[in-house]
């Protein structure tokens, strides 16, 4: 999810599921698969059980991984004399500042045909929105940043 304002741009992963709805979903999956496995165990086919258990663990893990990152975000703020990039991963916030005048915005060829967006100055660089944006969104963001920086710098 990408939102662009004049001097602030935020990229976040899509997060359309609430924790409560995911819990309900997982619970119903566990009950349903559990009943099936228990039913077959009852007639002697106990080997269904470990497979069902293993699979449910995987499902839960997948949701945990995704939900843990639901509050992640990346923010670019264009301020008076600096550009600040604020990155929040699993609740840990990290700030990186570049001198606004010297800030470069570059779009590179990434892996698998993805592009990658880098902000930097001098010999330091940071990637922005690696998994939360599409190529087109990167194009848009790059042109927005370049336009705004130019305007501010002049």
């Amino acid at each position, binding site marked *: 999810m990408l939102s662009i304002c004049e001097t602030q741009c935020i990229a976040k992963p*899509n997060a359309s*599921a609430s924790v409560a709805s995911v819990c309900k979903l997982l619970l119903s999956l566990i009950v349903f698969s559990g009943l099936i496995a228990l039913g077959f165990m009852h007639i002697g*086919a106990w080997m269904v*059980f470990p497979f069902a258990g293993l699979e449910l663990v995987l*499902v839960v893990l997948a949701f945990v991984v995704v939900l843990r990152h639901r509050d992640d975000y990346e923010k670019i703020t264009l301020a008076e004399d600096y550009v600040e990039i604020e990155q929040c991963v699993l609740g840990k916030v990290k700030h990186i500042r570049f001198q606004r005048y010297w800030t470069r915005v570059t779009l590179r060829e990434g892996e*698998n045909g993805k592009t990658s967006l880098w902000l930097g100055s001098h010999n330091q660089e*940071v*990637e922005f929105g690696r998994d939360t944006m599409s190529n087109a*969104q990167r194009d848009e963001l790059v042109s927005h940043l370049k336009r705004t920086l130019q305007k501010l710098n002049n």
Partner: protein
Amino acid sequence: MSTTTVAHHDEHQEHPTGIMRWLTTTNHKDIGTMYLTFSLVMFLVGGCMILGIRAELFKPGLQLMNPEFFNQLIGVHALIMIFAALMPAATGFANWMLPLQLGAPDMALPRLNNWGFWILPPSAVLLTLPFTLALFGIGDGALATGWTFYPPLSIQGGLGVDFAIFAIHLLGISSVLGSINIIVTIFNMRAPGMTLMKMPLFAWGWLITAFLLIATIPVLAGAVTMLLTDRHFGTHFFNAAGGGDPIMFQHLFWFFGHPEVYILLLPVWGFIPQILQTFSRKPMYGYKAQVYSLWGIGALSVVVWAHHFFAAGMPVPALLYFMYSTMAISLPLAVLFYCWIRTMWKGSMSFETPMLFTVGWIILFGIGGLTGLVLADVAADAQYHNSYFVVAHFHYTLFAGGIMGIMAGVYYWLPKMTGHMYNEKLGKLHFWLTAISFNVTFIPQFFVGLAGMPRRIPDYALQFAEFNMISSIGAFVLGLSQLLLVYNIISCVRGGQKATDRVWEGAVGLEWTLPSPPPYHSFTEQPVVK
């Protein structure tokens, strides 16, 4: 998810190219393309196997192969078509289209997605390797029990059974990984404003499919593992002499196997209404009714499994329960058929190839559905069971209802995926050849089945000769006409008339708002669903 990287300038310049790019890709479109390509290749492989069988059955007597090899071909044909052609095709569409339709940059778990695909090719190799090994004198060929693995025959069988069991495990892992990814994507990656009841029907179809896979794959995995331990480690799950029961395997297998039919069909039922509304230039009728019907079918599919083995004997109340619950599947299906036809009704229809396939699909799948209703009757099932009548029935549901639906999807989305229009004339020719030769192949099988020809026999009595000959001729035309599809796809990928963003005049949905082909990562502006 965001990752922080502070790096020096030149470190990020090297990227995998060539084969490594495909091995490591996590891009949903790359993976979708790989699934679809794999599916097409395996469709041709499975098709060649069945042409071998139809050639043998062209006339009475043993001409080309011995009965052992015949038995191997029928089983492997089925496994390949189900697990390596139909399922990957549906997964391929899911990978390509779900993120586009839901407005997401990619699937929720891209790395998992990559693993899910790369498990498939080795399992296809495992399945077919015993054929090659037998040429070198190792083992006695592939699985010769039919795709159903019924013990005690599968306990008696050779090396091929073990290979098939491992292949099934891998295929199962692949399906489960795919399903998990799809469930997470649908739940968590929808664009703001897209509530569940505003999702495209294709997403609904796949969501239910994924639930069914999650519920049933462990049962199949358990069943084949018990078979493996019965074969090699002295357990007696399916051996009466040791206190087991061979019929328990059938319960396990079909508890997976019947939902599997809907696993193959639900994604198709998802996108068919989307194609219909495009070419009828009229919104689909009864979206909610269709969603509820899909759920109804999904729910019923897990409680009707034993109708696959009425003939194995069970108490009368069980027979009646499974008969009536099976008949009940026709209720939600009737609603679906009604909605499809009501979508066409008073539309402004044009008949490009995807629409031709869709209309043909409705009619032929209708035959499959109606014969299925008749098959639910326990008394008559004693006659139909394991006869060619059943073979014809499930090819009407799985070839017409599955593969022809997939073909409709291929022609529908091909311009979007490649950016080029396919050859419309060839597409239409492909449709007519497929539809006609399909019927020439399978209508005679209804009749030989009724007359008393059992399935899975390498040679038959003289009274079945004429219908078998017609069926074989039909099968060869059917097989050869698929080369048109291959040619059309290849030439469309390589070039052709540029496709517009919208491609079809009446197309509705987020995927049609993007350029064709869509950029590697999809949405410029966050799409907002009203």
